[in-house]
């Protein structure tokens, strides 16, 4: 095989590799991860998912940020998680038709795990939940279902309300 032929083969090879290696960045569409809360009541048979009929507003304590603004008839919500704090304090504010307002605070204990997808993608912060605590005005109890908060959206918490409300 002569050198000229070999150069031809080389050029074909380079062209092929160049075409095949054209790729795209598979970045996640959204680099902000959310925690998901499902609303439940305890029943004689176990538990049942419920919709909160009161108007619900959720704020992040210590900030001016309103995370949920006057939503109603929701059986689950998604909330962002702080990047650096070890505990997030969220205030759940319920307003009924009589304009009465009730508040519960929810404390999320967590570890923050930086996540680097690639140099071409935005960085993100994942989280590992170590615990959840609440006050008990309307909320009876809360548990962690899936402790990992990442791009895989799944229900992370179950919030149990007193069944009278």
């Amino acid at each position: 095989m002569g050198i000229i032929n070999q150069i031809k083969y080389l050029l074909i090879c380079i062209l092929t590799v160049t075409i095949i290696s054209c790729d795209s960045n598979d970045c996640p569409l959204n680099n902000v991860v959310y925690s998901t809360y499902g609303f439940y009541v305890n029943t004689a048979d176990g538990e049942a998912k419920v919709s909160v009929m009161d108007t619900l507003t959720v704020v992040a304590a210590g900030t001016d940020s309103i995370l949920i603004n006057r939503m109603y008839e929701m059986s689950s919500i998604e909330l962002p998680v702080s990047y650096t704090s070890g505990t997030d304090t969220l205030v759940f504010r319920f307003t009924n038709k009589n304009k009465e307002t009730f508040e519960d605070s929810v404390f999320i204990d967590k570890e923050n795990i930086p996540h680097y997808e690639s140099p071409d993608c935005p960085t993100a912060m994942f989280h590992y939940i170590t615990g959840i605590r609440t006050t008990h005005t309307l909320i009876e109890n809360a548990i962690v279902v899936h402790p990992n908060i990442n791009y895989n959206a799944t229900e992370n918490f179950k919030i149990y309300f007193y069944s009278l409300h």
Partner: protein
Amino acid sequence: MVNLSEQEAPVFGGVSLSADLVGVVMKALKSDYAQMEVAARLNFKEKYFPVFEMGYGSCDYEGAESGNTFKTQAPYFRIGMDYNFTKKWWKGNRLYAGVRYAFSSYQYDISSPRFSDPVWETECPFVYKDLKGTSHWGEVVFGIETRIWKFFHLGWNVRYKFLFSEKGSSIGNPWYIPGFGKFGTSGLGGTFNIIFDI
């Protein structure tokens, strides 16, 4: 005068050393990553060529839009064998296929200059250095080479690479693995070699 075509190839045909020019060109063109590579090869009966390859891969890349950076530099090693399909061994041309097992242990730095919490409005430093990674992969090689002058050969090959295992940091996988290329379960590569029989 001895007619080589009537002779069997010698059991041991010698040793050759080679260097890859693709990495040199990538380095000269300031590519996002480059790997400088040399190889030593044995020749048994002009058919079987056990080969040992070693190189040094480097990457210093910054995402154009994100500003994120990735940096690493580390050696890598491959061992394997080629099989020469050509019958007329005495002409010095070879058409071969081969396999490789490859390995690299490396450290990498990642950073993101703009990483802030949009809700809680805290700045989050995102600079991590000396994250450890280890990768094992295999390669299927197909190539040709030709004798240019006496002990001097030129050749090229293409390689299909497939990752056996990769152990990186929980913070993020390496963007580039020395010797393998951009991170993924598989990839393509190639070398253009200058080869000297010694």
